[in-house]
């Protein structure tokens, strides 16, 4: 989700509010414990639960809690989409393009259909995931979708075994009429470059974000600029005492989720059941209804366990649509998982070439920021990288111009903090460079220019808990192995998905269950929901049954842009609170009291006027006159319309071997905030993961395209290097509680700001501190490092 959509979200919540509704005033805990907690008055709806106190006063929320489905995962019992085996199920394989650009002359499926065991073949009529021409008439009519990247889906085959499906896929004969292609961003910008689209084309984002601007100019393959202007940057640079300027290059990173994208579709006339490896059951249901013109009531989406998405798994995708068509044709359930090569090709984080200029006064005050970025999202858009430059620090004069460059390669997709790791790599290194020029400490400069109170506390933690104070001047180690320290800061935004609902049932036997369509993609959503319900009823989270990931339950948010915790937990707390009030009202007469005299305190139901009267939940529910009570709640509007951000500051210690060009990250300390942390265990685990993905991005990962043949050379896990156990440094994480008085839980997600944004920049800054040389290009492979150090003649920056 791009920062620009922030206002839209606010408007959405505003429209959902009922203006006439009577409100009540409540005092909420507010601020950061290190600064002393305060109270914030808010007007809230009558059916909102009372404010939660700080985590230190709660029983379950805020306490490290074991993962709800940990035993199932550790024992291999979790049923992922790839694991779904249905009676009579067929296995499918996607057939994809072997050329990077051209038209399909003919497709012959007869050999494939004749192969014993093949049950259905489906040729794609419309391919999803690519930018679409603004004026479709600019394309010469074609019977089949035009091929614009090697690996573009063409057809699918379903058979009684995966082997037969694989064999049949190879028997589908496709004849192409080749067209000139370009896979290199720089070459694609040339006037005489082959054009990927015959006219202006735009790509929409997904529920996870990504996608680029529409209505921007397009010349050849260059789509943009999207221009943002505040003040007058020329004037700002004229006022500056110091200016830093530089070019930065980042690479294409693939998502590499361990479970590939995939679906099991069981198409029946009365209901289509879709098992999806998705970050959004709601987004899949929307797409299936849309593509197949089905009422949503006839589409059921199930995601019980999900093997990683990182932003790229929303909606039906080509694989979902093909699986559905095959299931319909074969009249049997069909499993279609992409293979590893296909997974690498169909989604990625776009690359970037950024030109950045920052002006400042002698005391550090920023006077102007100017950023021009070119990036390629292949046949998609969404390569903008201006988020950090725009949103980290206040600056009166700002000009950013973001261009997408089309090339014949797989489409970019939302990927953990879209645009921000790229932008931060440039921007936070430039801020570091500015500190050097101003002869200021890098933390002190940020204290001067950064207004965010949470990051201020985070910087203080770095001063207190790392070796920052003993940092040596840049490049002062004598030997060939040089050590350095660096920091970088991140920014992410509070988004709320109002389509967040749940139902809570309480039975006479004391059992409590929660139902929502929201999915747990690995962040630990099941666990935090159990904690919120447990807190309300005074029962251990493990005693709450969590049933999620099924669209038969109330709608849940799509897990993109770190929205899940902040969107669904208030709905869950509200439902739990309302169910509890119903319970109290139903049983109060049996206890000879009134509902408003009953409360949950320290895990017991007590009389407010006589704490000696104290019962377990089970003793209370036993008095229910009916078998069950339930309550359903939807996300209430945010309590205020403030624009809120989250962030973090990450500190890196590393060693650079200047003879081999190898960079060893030795220690990372991350201080992060995400509203009220519900389960610190899960939050810290996600931050560890973000830090490691960030190191992997900075040092190892890189999609390599064959410029002559036009396909991805390393679409596998042995040549596309991602960080492994051997490259894991010592990691320490500090969580900063930040109470924002925005919802009944104040929870927020951590997925985006969890280190992935900062690490490349922090490593770059530490590299500079170690060597005195600025790394302006990632990945910091030995080749790129030795080139930067002037030890070898490198290729021209691209």
């Amino acid at each position: 989700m791009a920062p620009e959509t922030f206002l839209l979200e606010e408007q959405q919540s505003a429209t959902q509010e009922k203006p006439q509704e009577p409100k009540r005033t409540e005092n909420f805990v507010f601020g950061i414990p290190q600064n002393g907690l305060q109270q914030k008055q808010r007007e809230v709806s009558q059916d909102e639960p009372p404010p939660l106190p700080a985590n230190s006063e709660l029983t379950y929320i805020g306490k490290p809690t074991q993962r709800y489905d940990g035993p199932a995962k550790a024992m291999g019992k979790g049923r992922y989409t790839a694991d779904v085996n249905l009676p009579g199920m067929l296995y499918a394989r996607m057939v994809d393009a072997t050329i990077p650009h051209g038209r399909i002359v003919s497709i012959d499926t007869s050999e494939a259909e004749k192969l014993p065991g093949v049950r259905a073949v489906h040729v794609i009529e419309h391919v999803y995931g690519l930018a679409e021409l603004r004026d479709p008439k600019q394309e010469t009519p074609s019977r089949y979708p035009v091929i614009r990247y090697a690996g573009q889906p063409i057809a699918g085959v379903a058979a009684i075994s995966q082997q037969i499906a694989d064999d049949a896929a190879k028997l589908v004969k496709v004849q192409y009429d080749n067209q000139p292609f370009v896979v290199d961003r720089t070459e694609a910008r040339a006037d005489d470059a082959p054009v990927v689209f015959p006219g202006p084309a735009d790509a929409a984002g997904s529920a996870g974000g990504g996608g680029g601007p529409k209505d921007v100019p397009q010349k050849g393959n260059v789509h943009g600029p999207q221009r943002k202007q505040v003040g007058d940057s020329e004037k700002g640079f004229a006022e500056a005492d110091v200016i830093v300027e530089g070019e930065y290059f980042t690479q294409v990173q693939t998502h590499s989720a361990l479970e590939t994208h995939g679906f099991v579709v069981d198409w029946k006339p009365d209901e289509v059941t879709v098992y999806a490896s998705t970050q959004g059951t709601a987004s899949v249901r929307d797409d299936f209804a849309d593509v197949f013109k089905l009422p949503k009531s006839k589409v059921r989406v199930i995601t019980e366990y999900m093997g990683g998405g990182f932003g790229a798994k929303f909606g039906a995708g080509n694989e979902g649509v093909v699986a559905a068509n095959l299931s319909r044709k074969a009249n049997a359930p069909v499993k279609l998982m992409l293979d590893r090569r296909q997974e690498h090709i169909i989604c990625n984080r776009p690359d970037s070439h950024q030109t950045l200029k920052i002006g400042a006064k002698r005391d550090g005050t920023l006077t102007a920021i100017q950023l021009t970025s070119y990036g390629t999202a292949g046949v998609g858009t969404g390569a903008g990288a201006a988020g950090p430059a725009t949103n980290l620090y206040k600056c009166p004069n700002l000009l950013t111009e973001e261009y997408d460059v089309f090339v014949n390669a797989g489409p970019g997709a939302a990927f953990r903090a879209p645009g921000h790791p790229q932008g931060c790599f440039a921007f936070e290194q430039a801020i570091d460079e500015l500190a050097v020029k101003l002869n200021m400490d890098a933390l002190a400069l940020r204290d001067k220019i950064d207004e965010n109170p949470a990051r201020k506390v985070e910087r203080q933690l770095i001063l207190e808990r790392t070796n920052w104070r003993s940092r040596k001047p840049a490049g002062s180690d004598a030997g060939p192995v040089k050590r350095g320290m660096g920091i970088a800061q991140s920014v992410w935004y509070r988004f709320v998905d109002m389509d967040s609902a749940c139902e809570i049932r309480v039975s006479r036997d004391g059992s409590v269950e929660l139902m929502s369509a929201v999915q747990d993609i690995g962040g630990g959503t099941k666990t935090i929901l159990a904690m919120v319900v447990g807190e309300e009823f005074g029962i251990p989270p493990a005693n709450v049954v969590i049933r999620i990931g099924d669209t038969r339950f109330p709608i849940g948010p799509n897990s993109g842009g770190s929205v899940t915790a902040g969107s669904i937990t208030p709905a869950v707390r509200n439902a739990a609170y309302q169910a509890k009030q119903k319970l109290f009202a139903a049983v109060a007469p049996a206890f000879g009291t009134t509902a408003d005299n009953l409360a949950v305190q320290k895990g017991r139901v007590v009389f407010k006027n006589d704490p000696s009267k104290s019962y377990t939940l089970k003793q209370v529910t036993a008095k229910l006159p009916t078998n069950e009570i339930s309550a359903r709640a939807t996300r209430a509007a945010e309590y205020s319309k403030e624009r809120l951000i989250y962030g973090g500051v990450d500190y890196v210690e590393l060693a650079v071997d200047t003879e081999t060009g190898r960079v060893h990250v030795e220690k990372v300390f991350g201080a992060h905030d995400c509203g009220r942390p519900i389960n610190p265990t899960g939050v810290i685990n996600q931050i560890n993961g973000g830090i490691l993905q960030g190191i992997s991005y900075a040092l190892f990962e890189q999609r390599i395209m064959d410029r002559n043949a036009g396909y991805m050379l390393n679409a596998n896990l042995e040549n596309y290097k991602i960080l492994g156990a051997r490259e894991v440094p010592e990691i320490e994480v500090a969580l900063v509680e930040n109470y924002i008085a925005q919802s009944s839980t104040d929870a927020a997600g951590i997925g985006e700001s969890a280190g992935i944004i900062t690490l490349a920049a922090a490593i770059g800054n530490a590299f500079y501190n170690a060597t005195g040389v600025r790394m302006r290009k990632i990945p910091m492979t030995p080749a790129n490092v030795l080139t930067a150090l002037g030890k070898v003649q490198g290729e021209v920056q691209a």
Partner: protein
Amino acid sequence: MADTPKIEFSRRGFLKGAGITAATTVIESANALARDAKGALHGAQTIGPDALPIKLRVNGHEHAVTVEPRYTLAQTLRDNLDLTGTKVVCDRGSCSACTVWIDKVPSLACMTLAVDAVGREITTIEGLSHGDTMHPVQAAFVKHDAMQCGFCTPGMVMSCAALLERNPNPKLDDVKHAVSGNLCRCGTYPKIFAATLDAAQQHAQVAGLVTLNAGTEA
């Protein structure tokens, strides 16, 4: 990998020779593959390309399955025996998600043909626990939250449990070495290291740990 047993047919080499329509292979006996004491095959004959009945001993139970000679052990476990705890991620031996034990040695099920596992003792993630009682490494993974999406977890657990079998007192570096072939995209390595070291230390004590942090309601 030093831990990988000598498998007579590498899958890739085999498939290269086999092609699509002539998926034949050369083994001693189609129905009852016998090996000598060192596990070596001799007196080869040609089988396939059609499916053939074999018997696999998995988690202490013998299973009769009919598979083509080109079926991997990973696929056979998942598709034929519905033992889906063993995950397939790269399907070519570069991520270790499919790690199972073959005769107690951690091995890649995606690089092992099912017909090559005949006569061997196969242990999968499902065979590591006893009912709801987790193996100490599994319990420690839960205790330390050594997982996020959980897709790499079974392979990680099999690698770490095998480490403790051969080295009950590993150092951090031993753990890193043991899982150096196991990829985790969520980045849970620090927790995996801590869990495995803890499991080694707590071997006896954690053996009974099953449930979440919570007790029963008073």
